[in-house]
């Protein structure tokens, strides 16, 4: 498979096929990050698309890390901005999800068992949820997540541990396990 950075360079030079390929490879990851943070599936899709536009205009001075993690960084920051605008960004609260309303992440998944897991993820405290989505959807390293979120590396590791532990415990409670 051709390296993402090379394909992106082609896209930036105006190659539409390369642009479509970059979009196809990374859109699902981005929309899962943004939907779980921005409050609605529509906003998630809008922010994911906008992230690609911002990528085109970004001044990239190094190619360390992956294109996916750079896109995840852009998407995360745009989603935080949107969440703050909607006053959803409150680190002291868990996500405002009611039993009646399927969360944006739930709306993205198709299987019933996945829907249960999506609900569990959406109900995680925000600081755990953002680390989990950046790690598992954005494929970011812990060091990258520390840079993106501005928290110490040890805290990132602690948050991913509690996030996954909570998800596994909730799945067991509901009788869903591997």
């Amino acid at each position: 498979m051709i390296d993402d950075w090379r394909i992106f360079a082609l896209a930036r030079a105006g190659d539409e096929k390369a642009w479509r390929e970059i979009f196809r490879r990374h859109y699902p990851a981005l929309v899962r990050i943004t939907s779980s943070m921005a409050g609605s599936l529509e906003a998630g899709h809008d922010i994911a698309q906008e992230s690609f536009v911002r990528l085109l205009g970004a001044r990239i001075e190094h190619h360390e890390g992956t294109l996916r993690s750079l896109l995840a960084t852009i998407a995360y920051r745009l989603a935080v901005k949107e969440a703050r605008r909607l006053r959803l960004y409150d680190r002291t609260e868990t996500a405002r999800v009611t039993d009646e309303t399927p969360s944006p992440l739930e709306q993205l998944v198709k299987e019933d068992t996945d829907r249960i897991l999506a609900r569990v993820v959406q109900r995680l405290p925000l600081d755990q949820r953002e680390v989990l989505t950046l790690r598992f959807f954005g494929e970011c390293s812990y060091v990258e997540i520390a840079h993106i979120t501005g928290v110490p590396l040890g805290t990132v590791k602690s948050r991913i541990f509690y996030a996954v532990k909570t998800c596994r415990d909730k799945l067991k409670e509901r009788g869903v396990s591997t």
Partner: protein
Amino acid sequence: MTHPDADTLLKHVLETLDEPERSEVAGHLAGCEACRKAETEIRGDIRKLESLGSDVEVPPPPALPRMLERTRVISQWAAVLAAGFLLGYFTSNLTSALPATPVQQRLVPERIVEDTLGFLPCPPVDAAAPASR
């Protein structure tokens, strides 16, 4: 080593353990089938998390030429704003101290381009690519 507890096993799978604990757990797993089974279960749950919603339908991307044009226009406007800012700055300081150094003149427009876009495009990443999984 005795059997690692469930939390330690989870930290091992998440690659958040430090040495020497990481090596101790890895060594134990090599010789303990029961713990390997528990490890496999954890990896299965993590795969579920990683693939959650990954089959989402991908819409058509924004039209590339229009996007390239948009980023070009934003850059041009940023340059115009920066030029206006500099012009105002120098004309208001004609009677004061020496003009800014060439280095300062180069840096100011770049900062404005980034501010116009809303955020820095990418943080410095001083470590290796994502950790091996």
